[in-house]
Protein backbone atom coordinates (compact mmCIF):
# COMPACT_ATOMS: atom_id res chain seq x y z
CA UNK A 1 0.00 0.00 0.00
CA UNK A 2 2.56 2.52 1.17
CA UNK A 3 4.92 1.25 -1.48
CA UNK A 4 2.73 2.06 -4.45
CA UNK A 5 1.66 5.38 -2.95
CA UNK A 6 5.28 6.42 -2.59
CA UNK A 7 6.49 5.21 -5.95
CA UNK A 8 3.31 6.67 -7.45
CA UNK A 9 4.15 10.02 -5.93
CA UNK A 10 7.65 9.75 -7.36
CA UNK A 11 6.56 9.13 -10.92
CA UNK A 12 3.57 11.45 -10.43
CA UNK A 13 5.83 14.33 -9.56
CA UNK A 14 7.43 13.95 -13.00
CA UNK A 15 4.00 14.02 -14.68
CA UNK A 16 3.12 16.96 -12.48
CA UNK A 17 6.20 18.93 -13.51
CA UNK A 18 5.41 18.45 -17.17
CA UNK A 19 1.74 19.15 -16.53
CA UNK A 20 2.72 22.40 -14.85
CA UNK A 21 4.97 23.26 -17.75
CA UNK A 22 2.02 22.83 -20.11
CA UNK A 23 -0.21 24.75 -17.77
CA UNK A 24 2.18 27.68 -17.42
CA UNK A 25 2.25 28.15 -21.19
CA UNK A 26 -1.50 27.81 -21.37
CA UNK A 27 -1.98 30.23 -18.52
CA UNK A 28 -0.36 33.10 -20.35
CA UNK A 29 -1.07 32.33 -24.01
CA UNK A 30 -4.13 30.05 -23.98
CA UNK A 31 -2.19 27.64 -26.12
CA UNK A 32 -1.20 24.06 -25.29
CA UNK A 33 2.40 23.56 -26.29
CA UNK A 34 2.39 20.00 -27.57
CA UNK A 35 6.15 20.02 -27.89
CA UNK A 36 6.61 20.32 -24.12
CA UNK A 37 7.53 16.64 -23.81
CA UNK A 38 10.16 17.18 -26.47
CA UNK A 39 11.80 19.98 -24.52
CA UNK A 40 12.05 17.54 -21.62
CA UNK A 41 13.62 15.04 -23.98
CA UNK A 42 16.08 17.67 -25.18
CA UNK A 43 17.28 18.17 -21.61
CA UNK A 44 17.84 14.43 -21.20
CA UNK A 45 19.62 14.00 -24.52
CA UNK A 46 21.88 17.01 -24.07
CA UNK A 47 22.83 15.99 -20.55
CA UNK A 48 23.62 12.45 -21.68
CA UNK A 49 25.62 13.61 -24.69
CA UNK A 50 27.66 16.19 -22.81
CA UNK A 51 28.45 13.96 -19.85
CA UNK A 52 29.44 11.09 -22.14
CA UNK A 53 31.82 13.53 -23.83
CA UNK A 54 33.67 13.67 -20.55
CA UNK A 55 32.31 16.77 -18.82
CA UNK A 56 31.08 16.69 -15.25
CA UNK A 57 27.47 15.54 -14.85
CA UNK A 58 26.50 18.77 -13.14
CA UNK A 59 27.75 20.90 -16.01
CA UNK A 60 25.97 18.56 -18.37
CA UNK A 61 22.76 18.90 -16.38
CA UNK A 62 23.01 22.68 -16.46
CA UNK A 63 23.49 22.58 -20.21
CA UNK A 64 20.50 20.26 -20.46
CA UNK A 65 18.30 22.71 -18.59
CA UNK A 66 19.43 25.55 -20.80
CA UNK A 67 18.68 23.35 -23.80
CA UNK A 68 15.13 22.63 -22.73
CA UNK A 69 14.50 26.33 -22.08
CA UNK A 70 15.83 27.19 -25.51
CA UNK A 71 13.64 24.57 -27.15
CA UNK A 72 10.56 25.84 -25.31
CA UNK A 73 11.29 29.46 -26.24
CA UNK A 74 11.88 28.42 -29.83
CA UNK A 75 8.52 26.67 -29.78
CA UNK A 76 6.94 29.99 -28.88
CA UNK A 77 8.83 31.97 -31.46
CA UNK A 78 8.41 29.50 -34.30
CA UNK A 79 5.13 27.75 -33.66
CA UNK A 80 3.00 29.90 -31.38
CA UNK A 81 3.70 33.55 -31.94
CA UNK A 82 3.04 33.58 -35.71
CA UNK A 83 -0.29 31.83 -35.16
CA UNK A 84 -1.40 34.21 -32.43
CA UNK A 85 -0.40 37.12 -34.64
CA UNK A 86 -2.83 35.86 -37.27
CA UNK A 87 -5.32 35.36 -34.47
CA UNK A 88 -8.32 34.43 -36.49
CA UNK A 89 -6.93 30.97 -36.92
CA UNK A 90 -7.77 29.51 -33.60
CA UNK A 91 -6.47 25.97 -33.83
CA UNK A 92 -3.42 26.38 -35.98
CA UNK A 93 -1.15 26.15 -32.95
CA UNK A 94 -2.28 22.58 -32.47
CA UNK A 95 -0.70 21.69 -35.79
CA UNK A 96 2.33 23.91 -35.49
CA UNK A 97 3.34 22.85 -31.98
CA UNK A 98 3.00 19.22 -33.01
CA UNK A 99 5.00 19.93 -36.11
CA UNK A 100 7.63 21.52 -33.92
CA UNK A 101 7.57 18.42 -31.71
CA UNK A 102 8.19 16.24 -34.76
CA UNK A 103 11.11 18.40 -35.80
CA UNK A 104 12.74 18.28 -32.36
CA UNK A 105 12.11 14.58 -31.81
CA UNK A 106 13.43 13.49 -35.16
CA UNK A 107 16.23 16.00 -35.02
CA UNK A 108 17.39 14.29 -31.82
CA UNK A 109 17.02 10.87 -33.42
CA UNK A 110 18.99 12.06 -36.42
CA UNK A 111 21.77 13.51 -34.28
CA UNK A 112 22.10 10.82 -31.65
CA UNK A 113 20.40 7.80 -33.13
CA UNK A 114 17.14 6.22 -32.03
CA UNK A 115 18.58 3.88 -29.41
CA UNK A 116 18.80 4.58 -25.71
CA UNK A 117 22.02 6.01 -24.36
CA UNK A 118 23.30 5.94 -20.78
CA UNK A 119 22.34 8.81 -18.53
CA UNK A 120 24.65 9.97 -15.73
CA UNK A 121 23.46 9.05 -12.25
CA UNK A 122 23.57 12.01 -9.90
CA UNK A 123 22.85 9.94 -6.87
CA UNK A 124 23.82 6.40 -6.19
CA UNK A 125 21.13 3.81 -6.19
CA UNK A 126 20.93 3.77 -2.40
CA UNK A 127 17.50 2.91 -1.17
CA UNK A 128 15.74 4.27 1.83
CA UNK A 129 13.37 2.21 3.92
CA UNK A 130 10.21 3.85 5.11
CA UNK A 131 8.30 1.31 7.12
CA UNK A 132 7.91 -1.62 4.80
CA UNK A 133 8.26 0.51 1.69
CA UNK A 134 11.46 1.07 -0.25
CA UNK A 135 12.28 4.23 -2.12
CA UNK A 136 15.44 5.11 -4.02
CA UNK A 137 17.17 8.38 -3.36
CA UNK A 138 16.40 9.30 -6.93
CA UNK A 139 12.67 8.92 -6.29
CA UNK A 140 12.86 10.89 -3.09
CA UNK A 141 14.70 13.63 -4.92
CA UNK A 142 11.95 13.73 -7.56
CA UNK A 143 9.21 14.18 -4.99
CA UNK A 144 11.14 16.83 -3.08
CA UNK A 145 12.07 18.76 -6.21
CA UNK A 146 8.53 18.70 -7.54
CA UNK A 147 7.13 20.00 -4.27
CA UNK A 148 9.74 22.70 -4.07
CA UNK A 149 9.21 23.75 -7.69
CA UNK A 150 5.44 23.87 -7.35
CA UNK A 151 5.62 25.83 -4.11
CA UNK A 152 8.17 28.22 -5.50
CA UNK A 153 6.05 28.83 -8.55
CA UNK A 154 3.00 29.52 -6.46
CA UNK A 155 4.92 31.88 -4.16
CA UNK A 156 6.28 33.78 -7.14
CA UNK A 157 2.84 33.97 -8.76
CA UNK A 158 1.18 35.19 -5.60
CA UNK A 159 3.74 37.61 -4.21
CA UNK A 160 5.97 39.08 -6.89
CA UNK A 161 5.02 41.81 -9.28
CA UNK A 162 5.91 39.56 -12.18
CA UNK A 163 3.67 36.81 -10.87
CA UNK A 164 0.79 39.20 -10.47
CA UNK A 165 1.41 40.46 -13.95
CA UNK A 166 1.01 36.87 -15.10
CA UNK A 167 -2.32 36.69 -13.30
CA UNK A 168 -3.38 39.92 -14.98
CA UNK A 169 -2.40 38.72 -18.44
CA UNK A 170 -4.12 35.41 -17.93
CA UNK A 171 -7.33 37.18 -16.96
CA UNK A 172 -7.40 40.00 -19.51
CA UNK A 173 -4.50 40.30 -21.97
CA UNK A 174 -5.86 43.41 -23.65
CA UNK A 175 -6.25 45.32 -20.41
CA UNK A 176 -2.86 44.07 -19.29
CA UNK A 177 -1.26 45.66 -22.32
CA UNK A 178 -3.22 48.83 -21.60
CA UNK A 179 -1.47 49.10 -18.24
CA UNK A 180 1.89 48.77 -19.93
CA UNK A 181 2.52 45.03 -19.98
CA UNK A 182 4.51 43.71 -22.89
CA UNK A 183 2.56 40.52 -23.36
CA UNK A 184 5.05 39.03 -25.81
CA UNK A 185 7.90 39.41 -23.37
CA UNK A 186 5.88 37.86 -20.58
CA UNK A 187 4.90 34.95 -22.83
CA UNK A 188 8.55 34.37 -23.69
CA UNK A 189 9.46 34.26 -20.03
CA UNK A 190 6.55 31.92 -19.34
CA UNK A 191 7.71 29.54 -22.06
CA UNK A 192 11.24 29.66 -20.70
CA UNK A 193 10.00 28.83 -17.20
CA UNK A 194 7.92 26.01 -18.64
CA UNK A 195 11.03 24.73 -20.43
CA UNK A 196 12.86 24.82 -17.11
CA UNK A 197 10.13 22.77 -15.45
CA UNK A 198 10.18 20.24 -18.25
CA UNK A 199 13.98 20.14 -18.11
CA UNK A 200 13.96 19.47 -14.38
CA UNK A 201 11.49 16.66 -14.98
CA UNK A 202 13.87 15.26 -17.57
CA UNK A 203 16.86 15.31 -15.23
CA UNK A 204 14.81 13.55 -12.58
CA UNK A 205 13.51 10.80 -14.83
CA UNK A 206 16.62 10.38 -16.98
CA UNK A 207 18.45 7.90 -14.70
CA UNK A 208 15.57 5.44 -14.87
CA UNK A 209 14.55 5.83 -18.50
CA UNK A 210 18.01 6.45 -20.02
CA UNK A 211 18.29 8.91 -22.87
CA UNK A 212 15.97 8.18 -25.75
CA UNK A 213 14.69 10.65 -28.35
CA UNK A 214 11.16 9.21 -28.21
CA UNK A 215 10.63 9.82 -24.50
CA UNK A 216 9.03 13.15 -25.22
CA UNK A 217 5.68 12.04 -26.56
CA UNK A 218 4.99 9.52 -23.78
CA UNK A 219 5.74 11.93 -20.99
CA UNK A 220 4.10 14.79 -22.85
CA UNK A 221 0.87 12.80 -22.98
CA UNK A 222 1.00 11.93 -19.29
CA UNK A 223 1.77 15.54 -18.45
CA UNK A 224 -1.23 16.59 -20.49
CA UNK A 225 -3.47 14.16 -18.63
CA UNK A 226 -2.06 15.43 -15.33
CA UNK A 227 -2.99 18.95 -16.32
CA UNK A 228 -6.50 17.93 -17.34
CA UNK A 229 -7.15 15.89 -14.19
CA UNK A 230 -6.01 18.70 -11.97
CA UNK A 231 -7.73 21.46 -13.85
CA UNK A 232 -4.42 23.10 -14.63
CA UNK A 233 -5.96 25.10 -17.43
CA UNK A 234 -7.04 27.51 -14.74
CA UNK A 235 -4.32 27.30 -12.15
CA UNK A 236 -0.94 25.82 -13.05
CA UNK A 237 -0.25 24.44 -9.62
CA UNK A 238 -3.27 22.14 -9.79
CA UNK A 239 -1.49 20.28 -12.59
CA UNK A 240 0.98 19.11 -9.96
CA UNK A 241 -1.84 17.68 -7.86
CA UNK A 242 -3.18 16.07 -11.00
CA UNK A 243 0.21 14.56 -11.72
CA UNK A 244 0.64 13.15 -8.23
CA UNK A 245 -2.85 11.70 -8.35
CA UNK A 246 -2.18 10.23 -11.77
CA UNK A 247 1.05 8.63 -10.58
CA UNK A 248 -0.54 7.08 -7.51
CA UNK A 249 -3.50 5.82 -9.52
CA UNK A 250 -1.27 4.26 -12.15
CA UNK A 251 1.00 2.56 -9.64
CA UNK A 252 -1.98 1.54 -7.55
CA UNK A 253 -3.70 0.00 -10.54
CA UNK A 254 -0.54 -1.93 -11.31
CA UNK A 255 -0.26 -3.20 -7.79
CA UNK A 256 -3.89 -3.98 -7.14
CA UNK A 257 -5.43 -4.93 -10.50
CA UNK A 258 -2.79 -6.30 -12.80
CA UNK A 259 0.50 -5.33 -14.30
CA UNK A 260 -1.10 -3.71 -17.35
CA UNK A 261 -3.76 -1.78 -15.53
CA UNK A 262 -1.63 1.34 -15.42
CA UNK A 263 -2.16 1.63 -19.17
CA UNK A 264 -5.88 2.14 -18.97
CA UNK A 265 -6.85 2.87 -15.39
CA UNK A 266 -5.70 6.52 -15.36
CA UNK A 267 -7.72 7.18 -18.49
CA UNK A 268 -10.78 5.68 -16.94
CA UNK A 269 -10.33 8.00 -13.99
CA UNK A 270 -9.85 10.94 -16.31
CA UNK A 271 -13.04 10.13 -18.20
CA UNK A 272 -14.97 9.80 -14.96
CA UNK A 273 -13.57 13.11 -13.75
CA UNK A 274 -14.49 14.79 -17.02
CA UNK A 275 -18.00 13.39 -16.90
CA UNK A 276 -18.64 14.19 -13.26
CA UNK A 277 -17.16 17.68 -13.06
CA UNK A 278 -16.90 19.18 -16.51
CA UNK A 279 -17.55 22.58 -14.96
CA UNK A 280 -14.67 22.25 -12.57
CA UNK A 281 -12.29 21.32 -15.33
CA UNK A 282 -13.85 23.19 -18.18
CA UNK A 283 -14.48 26.54 -16.69
CA UNK A 284 -11.79 28.76 -18.12
CA UNK A 285 -14.06 31.74 -18.51
CA UNK A 286 -13.41 33.56 -21.73
CA UNK A 287 -12.64 30.46 -23.74
CA UNK A 288 -16.24 29.51 -23.69
CA UNK A 289 -18.45 31.67 -25.82
CA UNK A 290 -20.41 34.08 -23.77
CA UNK A 291 -23.77 32.51 -24.52
CA UNK A 292 -22.67 29.43 -22.64
CA UNK A 293 -22.29 31.55 -19.59
CA UNK A 294 -25.75 32.90 -20.12
CA UNK A 295 -27.02 29.38 -20.54
CA UNK A 296 -25.42 28.39 -17.26
CA UNK A 297 -27.07 31.29 -15.57
CA UNK A 298 -30.36 30.15 -16.96
CA UNK A 299 -29.72 26.54 -16.09
CA UNK A 300 -28.84 27.37 -12.54
CA UNK A 301 -32.31 28.58 -11.97
Amino acid at each position, binding site marked *: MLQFVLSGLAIGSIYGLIGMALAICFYVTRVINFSQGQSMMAAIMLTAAISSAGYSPLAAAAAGLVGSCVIAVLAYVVAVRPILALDRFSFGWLVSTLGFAAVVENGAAYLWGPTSRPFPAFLNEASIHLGDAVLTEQQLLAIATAIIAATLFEVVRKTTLFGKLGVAIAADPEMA*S*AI*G*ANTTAVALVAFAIAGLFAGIAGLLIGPSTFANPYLGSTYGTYGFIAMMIGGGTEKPVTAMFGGLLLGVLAEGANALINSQASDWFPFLVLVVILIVTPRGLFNAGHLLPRFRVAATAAARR
Partner: protein
Amino acid sequence: MSAGYGRFDVVHDVGLRVGRGEAVALLGPNGAGKTTVLKAIMGLVKQRRGTVRVGETDVSAFPTHRIASGFLAIAPEGRRLFTDLSVEDNLVLGALHLRRETARVQALLDSVYDLFPVLRSYSRRRSAFLSGGEQQMVAIGRMLMSDPDVLLLDEPSVALSPAAVETVVKALIELRRRGASLLLVEQRIDIAVRVCDRLYILTHGEIAEEMTPETVRREGLGIINKYLG
Protein backbone atom coordinates in the same frame (compact mmCIF):
# COMPACT_ATOMS: atom_id res chain seq x y z
CA MET B 1 -7.29 59.96 -37.15
CA SER B 2 -9.40 57.14 -38.53
CA ALA B 3 -9.87 53.69 -37.05
CA GLY B 4 -11.97 50.67 -37.55
CA TYR B 5 -12.29 46.96 -37.34
CA GLY B 6 -11.79 45.12 -40.58
CA ARG B 7 -12.10 46.93 -43.84
CA PHE B 8 -14.59 49.57 -42.96
CA ASP B 9 -13.98 52.35 -40.55
CA VAL B 10 -16.04 52.79 -37.47
CA VAL B 11 -14.69 56.27 -36.99
CA HIS B 12 -13.32 58.48 -39.71
CA ASP B 13 -11.09 61.48 -39.61
CA VAL B 14 -11.65 62.22 -35.98
CA GLY B 15 -9.46 65.08 -34.90
CA LEU B 16 -9.45 66.09 -31.31
CA ARG B 17 -7.12 67.88 -29.00
CA VAL B 18 -6.74 67.88 -25.27
CA GLY B 19 -4.72 70.77 -23.91
CA ARG B 20 -2.46 70.50 -20.90
CA GLY B 21 -4.62 70.54 -17.80
CA GLU B 22 -7.72 70.57 -19.90
CA ALA B 23 -10.73 68.28 -19.64
CA VAL B 24 -12.50 67.35 -22.81
CA ALA B 25 -15.63 65.28 -23.17
CA LEU B 26 -16.61 63.12 -26.07
CA LEU B 27 -20.37 62.79 -26.24
CA GLY B 28 -22.48 60.84 -28.64
CA PRO B 29 -25.15 58.22 -29.00
CA ASN B 30 -24.50 54.52 -28.61
CA GLY B 31 -22.60 53.12 -31.54
CA ALA B 32 -21.22 56.46 -32.61
CA GLY B 33 -17.72 55.11 -32.10
CA LYS B 34 -16.72 56.77 -28.83
CA THR B 35 -15.19 53.67 -27.33
CA THR B 36 -13.44 52.92 -30.60
CA VAL B 37 -11.86 56.37 -30.56
CA LEU B 38 -10.44 55.74 -27.11
CA LYS B 39 -9.24 52.26 -28.02
CA ALA B 40 -7.64 53.54 -31.18
CA ILE B 41 -5.82 56.27 -29.29
CA MET B 42 -4.58 53.63 -26.88
CA GLY B 43 -3.40 51.41 -29.75
CA LEU B 44 -5.89 48.67 -28.91
CA VAL B 45 -7.52 48.80 -32.34
CA LYS B 46 -5.21 47.36 -34.94
CA GLN B 47 -6.46 49.06 -38.07
CA ARG B 48 -5.89 52.70 -37.59
CA ARG B 49 -4.44 55.53 -39.54
CA GLY B 50 -3.51 59.04 -38.70
CA THR B 51 -1.40 60.30 -35.88
CA VAL B 52 -1.74 60.39 -32.16
CA ARG B 53 0.58 62.83 -30.50
CA VAL B 54 1.25 63.21 -26.80
CA GLY B 55 3.17 66.38 -26.12
CA GLU B 56 6.04 66.31 -28.57
CA THR B 57 6.00 62.53 -29.06
CA ASP B 58 4.26 60.85 -31.93
CA VAL B 59 2.95 57.63 -30.39
CA SER B 60 0.97 56.45 -33.41
CA ALA B 61 3.34 53.60 -34.19
CA PHE B 62 3.93 52.57 -30.58
CA PRO B 63 2.58 49.27 -29.31
CA THR B 64 -0.04 49.64 -26.61
CA HIS B 65 2.28 48.79 -23.76
CA ARG B 66 4.59 51.66 -24.67
CA ILE B 67 1.74 54.11 -25.00
CA ALA B 68 0.65 52.98 -21.56
CA SER B 69 4.10 53.68 -20.12
CA GLY B 70 3.46 57.19 -18.94
CA PHE B 71 1.92 58.75 -22.03
CA LEU B 72 -1.70 57.73 -21.73
CA ALA B 73 -3.76 55.58 -19.42
CA ILE B 74 -7.27 54.30 -19.71
CA ALA B 75 -10.10 53.43 -17.37
CA PRO B 76 -12.05 51.30 -19.78
CA GLU B 77 -15.70 50.54 -20.20
CA GLY B 78 -16.75 47.92 -17.70
CA ARG B 79 -13.71 48.85 -15.55
CA ARG B 80 -11.94 45.56 -16.29
CA LEU B 81 -10.11 45.18 -13.03
CA PHE B 82 -7.94 42.15 -12.46
CA THR B 83 -10.51 40.65 -10.17
CA ASP B 84 -8.30 37.85 -8.84
CA LEU B 85 -5.92 40.40 -7.39
CA SER B 86 -6.27 42.68 -4.42
CA VAL B 87 -6.99 46.37 -4.67
CA GLU B 88 -3.41 47.31 -3.96
CA ASP B 89 -2.07 44.80 -6.49
CA ASN B 90 -4.32 46.30 -9.13
CA LEU B 91 -3.01 49.74 -8.29
CA VAL B 92 0.63 48.71 -8.19
CA LEU B 93 0.31 46.94 -11.53
CA GLY B 94 -0.87 50.25 -12.92
CA ALA B 95 2.61 51.58 -12.26
CA LEU B 96 4.26 48.75 -14.13
CA HIS B 97 6.67 50.90 -16.10
CA LEU B 98 7.78 52.63 -12.92
CA ARG B 99 8.51 49.36 -11.11
CA ARG B 100 12.15 50.26 -10.48
CA GLU B 101 11.30 53.56 -8.83
CA THR B 102 9.76 52.25 -5.63
CA ALA B 103 9.64 55.63 -3.94
CA ARG B 104 7.69 57.16 -6.78
CA VAL B 105 5.27 54.21 -6.84
CA GLN B 106 4.71 54.66 -3.12
CA ALA B 107 4.07 58.37 -3.57
CA LEU B 108 1.59 57.69 -6.36
CA LEU B 109 -0.10 55.06 -4.23
CA ASP B 110 -0.45 57.54 -1.40
CA SER B 111 -1.93 60.13 -3.69
CA VAL B 112 -4.48 57.62 -4.96
CA TYR B 113 -5.40 56.70 -1.41
CA ASP B 114 -5.73 60.41 -0.64
CA LEU B 115 -8.13 60.77 -3.49
CA PHE B 116 -10.15 57.69 -2.51
CA PRO B 117 -9.60 57.17 1.22
CA VAL B 118 -11.98 54.23 1.24
CA LEU B 119 -9.57 52.21 -0.89
CA ARG B 120 -6.87 52.40 1.73
CA SER B 121 -8.97 50.40 4.16
CA TYR B 122 -9.80 47.88 1.42
CA SER B 123 -6.28 47.60 0.05
CA ARG B 124 -5.94 43.89 0.83
CA ARG B 125 -9.38 42.94 -0.34
CA ARG B 126 -9.83 41.09 -3.64
CA SER B 127 -11.16 43.56 -6.12
CA ALA B 128 -13.90 41.15 -7.19
CA PHE B 129 -15.62 41.75 -3.87
CA LEU B 130 -15.96 45.51 -4.19
CA SER B 131 -19.09 47.42 -5.09
CA GLY B 132 -19.39 48.96 -8.54
CA GLY B 133 -18.47 52.41 -7.29
CA GLU B 134 -15.41 51.13 -5.45
CA GLN B 135 -14.36 49.17 -8.51
CA GLN B 136 -14.57 52.32 -10.57
CA MET B 137 -12.37 54.05 -8.01
CA VAL B 138 -9.80 51.28 -8.39
CA ALA B 139 -9.95 51.59 -12.16
CA ILE B 140 -9.34 55.32 -11.95
CA GLY B 141 -6.64 54.78 -9.36
CA ARG B 142 -4.92 52.17 -11.50
CA MET B 143 -4.89 54.67 -14.34
CA LEU B 144 -3.40 57.37 -12.15
CA MET B 145 -0.66 55.03 -10.97
CA SER B 146 1.13 55.14 -14.31
CA ASP B 147 1.44 58.92 -13.91
CA PRO B 148 0.24 59.54 -17.47
CA ASP B 149 0.10 62.77 -19.41
CA VAL B 150 -3.53 62.29 -20.33
CA LEU B 151 -6.26 60.23 -18.66
CA LEU B 152 -8.81 58.48 -20.84
CA LEU B 153 -12.09 57.54 -19.17
CA ASP B 154 -14.77 55.47 -20.85
CA GLU B 155 -18.20 56.03 -19.33
CA PRO B 156 -17.18 55.96 -15.68
CA SER B 157 -20.79 56.58 -14.63
CA VAL B 158 -22.33 53.49 -16.21
CA ALA B 159 -24.16 51.11 -13.92
CA LEU B 160 -23.36 53.02 -10.75
CA SER B 161 -25.71 54.19 -8.07
CA PRO B 162 -26.33 57.97 -7.99
CA ALA B 163 -24.21 58.28 -4.86
CA ALA B 164 -21.32 56.43 -6.47
CA VAL B 165 -21.61 58.59 -9.58
CA GLU B 166 -21.36 61.63 -7.35
CA THR B 167 -18.16 60.31 -5.73
CA VAL B 168 -16.62 59.59 -9.10
CA VAL B 169 -17.54 63.01 -10.46
CA LYS B 170 -16.12 64.72 -7.38
CA ALA B 171 -12.92 62.76 -7.83
CA LEU B 172 -12.68 63.85 -11.46
CA ILE B 173 -13.17 67.48 -10.47
CA GLU B 174 -10.48 67.05 -7.82
CA LEU B 175 -8.15 65.56 -10.42
CA ARG B 176 -8.75 68.56 -12.61
CA ARG B 177 -7.83 70.81 -9.73
CA ARG B 178 -4.58 68.89 -9.41
CA GLY B 179 -3.88 69.69 -13.03
CA ALA B 180 -4.65 66.45 -14.82
CA SER B 181 -5.61 66.35 -18.48
CA LEU B 182 -8.75 64.34 -19.16
CA LEU B 183 -10.52 62.87 -22.13
CA LEU B 184 -13.90 61.72 -20.92
CA VAL B 185 -16.33 59.63 -22.93
CA GLU B 186 -19.78 60.02 -21.48
CA GLN B 187 -23.42 59.52 -22.20
CA ARG B 188 -24.61 61.68 -19.38
CA ILE B 189 -24.36 65.23 -20.52
CA ASP B 190 -24.78 66.65 -17.06
CA ILE B 191 -21.57 64.96 -15.93
CA ALA B 192 -19.66 66.12 -18.97
CA VAL B 193 -20.85 69.68 -18.41
CA ARG B 194 -19.79 69.63 -14.78
CA VAL B 195 -16.34 68.20 -15.38
CA CYS B 196 -15.15 69.43 -18.74
CA ASP B 197 -13.95 72.59 -20.45
CA ARG B 198 -14.91 71.55 -23.93
CA LEU B 199 -17.33 69.07 -25.43
CA TYR B 200 -17.00 67.22 -28.69
CA ILE B 201 -20.04 65.55 -30.16
CA LEU B 202 -19.39 62.39 -32.10
CA THR B 203 -22.09 60.98 -34.34
CA HIS B 204 -21.66 58.22 -36.89
CA GLY B 205 -17.94 58.10 -36.40
CA GLU B 206 -17.42 61.78 -37.09
CA ILE B 207 -17.07 64.86 -34.94
CA ALA B 208 -20.30 66.69 -35.51
CA GLU B 209 -19.72 69.68 -33.30
CA GLU B 210 -17.53 71.22 -30.68
CA MET B 211 -18.91 73.42 -27.94
CA THR B 212 -18.30 74.69 -24.44
CA PRO B 213 -20.29 73.86 -21.33
CA GLU B 214 -21.31 77.51 -21.18
CA THR B 215 -23.13 77.14 -24.46
CA VAL B 216 -24.97 74.15 -23.09
CA ARG B 217 -25.89 75.92 -19.90
CA ARG B 218 -27.07 78.93 -21.84
CA GLU B 219 -28.99 77.17 -24.55
CA GLY B 220 -30.18 74.19 -22.58
CA LEU B 221 -29.63 70.54 -23.16
CA GLY B 222 -31.71 70.60 -26.30
CA ILE B 223 -28.72 71.69 -28.26
CA ILE B 224 -26.99 68.40 -27.54
CA ASN B 225 -30.07 66.25 -27.49
CA LYS B 226 -30.45 67.22 -31.09
CA TYR B 227 -27.46 65.00 -31.76
CA LEU B 228 -28.09 62.35 -29.22
CA GLY B 229 -31.61 61.86 -30.55
